[in-house]
């Protein structure tokens, strides 16, 4: 229980009067001082009586969108609180969220003023668990205050807490593959985006994809025939939004511009192509995938819900993928052969040795696996990536690498300052086909 400013002032006045009464031996001064104290005592008894009434009137009904999720996933919490706040009192209701959980959006608290009737109030927010295990919402904190006193009550009894959130563990790396060795290389598989209709049938020529052979026709004419599928053009680009981490400073005006650019492009995609596909990530964390959203209003509502700084469960710092490491090793090989300075050759050899030591233990990350799975089911030929370019950008490099493997055209949209930094080695930022500033 805390004494508010008015109480502290009145208490000080009472103490001064009582002190004066003692010094002067004056009953009138004693009456004044003791009457103020009596008034404060009665005010406290009143506050205590009304607070207990308010606390006893609290009824909490809480539900989770999902009670079993993986670490890093997001779930919505809806809490209905019924209580009666006495007149001329103010209350603050706050959900007691476990420290292992981060609030992604929404506000888990309410400010209320007193009224005669018992009201139902609603709190909505989304959480992301940062650790695995069983995480309970412990209850609520009810803070009441009037002019003289304020008090806070932690309502953690069983009727105010729960339900339990079961969080499954999720590693940062996939299990090591048994067949991968230092010598294996990724190859860029040639694939032409094809539609679903059959354009024509023709004879098989060497080099054609054997999966396209029409075996029924081939058996009929005793000659190999293949199906030629129709091509697909005019596909909407996939929009990938890289949200900044909520724990790192970033430019709010630039973020607003990025949000505006995303919304504009999403709207254009829905109007021109009848749907839009959006992927929301924050660093190496896939937060939300909105696949082929046809309803413009629904799409905009989803964007409004997700476009804000996000909590990251996994952070990367200069994570190289295996192909990048191999490329470094090959490039160092070349430099060692071409180099004239013995010291430099020794340095490059030593560096190459370090890379070779690291390479076998370089495992596939869960983000890379999930991204590959996600991109393989999306039908597009272009990807537009929106990012503020703040902090580590290894995840963008990985996204661009995988997109390029699938023959997507990748266009990076960044704030004007980041977009103007000149590209090195004749390639655009992180391997993207183009870099532009968002309007």
């Amino acid at each position, binding site marked *: *229980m805390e004494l508010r*400013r*008015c109480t502290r*002032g*009145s208490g000080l*006045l009472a103490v001064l*009067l*009582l002190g004066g*009464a*003692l010094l002067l*031996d*004056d*009953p*009138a*001064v*004693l*009456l*004044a001082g*003791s*009457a*103020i*104290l*009596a*008034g404060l*005592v*009665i005010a*406290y*008894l*009143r506050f*205590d*009586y*009304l607070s*207990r009434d308010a*606390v006893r009137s609290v009824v909490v009904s809480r539900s989770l969108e999902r009670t079993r999720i993986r670490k890093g996933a997001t779930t919505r919490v809806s809490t209905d609180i019924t209580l009666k706040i006495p*007149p*001329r009192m103010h209350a603050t209701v706050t959900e007691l969220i476990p420290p292992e959980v981060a609030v992604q959006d929404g506000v888990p608290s309410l400010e209320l003023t007193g009224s005669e009737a018992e009201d139902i109030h609603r709190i909505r927010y989304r959480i992301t668990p940062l650790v695995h295990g069983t995480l309970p919402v412990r209850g609520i904190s009810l803070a009441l205050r009037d*002019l003289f006193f304020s008090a806070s*009550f*932690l*309502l*953690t*009894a*069983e009727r105010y807490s729960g339900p339990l959130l079961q969080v499954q563990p999720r590693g940062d790396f996939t299990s090591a593959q048994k067949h991968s060795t230092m010598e294996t290389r990724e190859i860029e598989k040639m694939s032409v985006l094809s539609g679903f209709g059959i354009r024509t049938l023709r004879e098989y020529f060497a080099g054609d994809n054997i999966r396209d052979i029409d075996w029924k026709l081939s058996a009929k004419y005793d000659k190999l025939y293949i199906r030629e599928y129709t091509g697909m053009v005019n596909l909407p680009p996939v929009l990938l939004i890289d949200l900044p981490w909520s724990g790192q400073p970033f430019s709010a005006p630039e973020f607003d511009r990025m949000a505006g650019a995303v919304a504009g492009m999403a709207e254009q995609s829905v109007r021109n192509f009848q749907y839009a596909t959006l992927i929301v990530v924050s660093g190496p964390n896939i937060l939300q995938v909105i696949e082929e959203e046809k309803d413009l209003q629904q799409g905009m509502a989803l964007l409004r819900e997700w476009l804000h700084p996000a909590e990251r469960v996994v952070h990367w710092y200069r994570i190289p993928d295996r192909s990048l490491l191999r490329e470094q090793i090959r490039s160092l090989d070349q430099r060692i052969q071409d180099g004239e300075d013995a010291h430099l050759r020794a340095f490059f050899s030593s560096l190459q040795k370090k890379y070779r030591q690291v390479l076998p233990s370089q495992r596939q990350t869960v983000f890379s696996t999930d991204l590959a799975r996600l991109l393989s089911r999306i039908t597009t030929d272009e990807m537009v990536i929106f990012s503020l370019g703040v902090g580590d950008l290894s995840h963008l490099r990985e996204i661009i690498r995988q997109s390029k493997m699938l023959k997507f055209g990748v266009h990076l949209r960044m704030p004007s300052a980041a977009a103007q930094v000149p590209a090195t080695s004749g390639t655009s930022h992180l391997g993207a086909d183009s870099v532009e500033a968002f309007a």
Partner: protein
Amino acid sequence: MKPVLPEYGFSALLVAGVILLTLPSFPSVYGLVCILLALLPGLTLYLTRQWPDRAFYLICAGQPAVIACGSTVLFAGLFVELMLAGMVAGTMGLLVTREDYLFLLLFSGLTFLLTLLIQVSNHVFFLLPALGAALALLAGVLAIRNYQFRKECSGAPP
């Protein structure tokens, strides 16, 4: 016609009461001083009508009148204190529900009891520690009660 706010009603009663209680016994300058001090809470009430901690300013403004009237007749000081309490309750909006009036009545009874005690005892020196001890005992009881209630809120059996 706007209804008269209760705090202004109490203020008028305060001035009227002080005139009736002090002037017959003290028709001199001292009586006039008491009346002027009795006007002070009313003036403060008017001047602080937009201020946030109005109750505190009223309490401060009313104490000189309590002391001045109490020095003449102790129960006159009690009367001023009760009218002041009514003014404070009125400004805080605490004259609406039945509980509000009950607490005001409780305050009136407690201050009446205190006045009786002060009237009966000869010196402040003996009464003050006794009042202090009573207050400490009350604080202890309330603290235990508060602790038990908080335990109940956290799920412990009552």
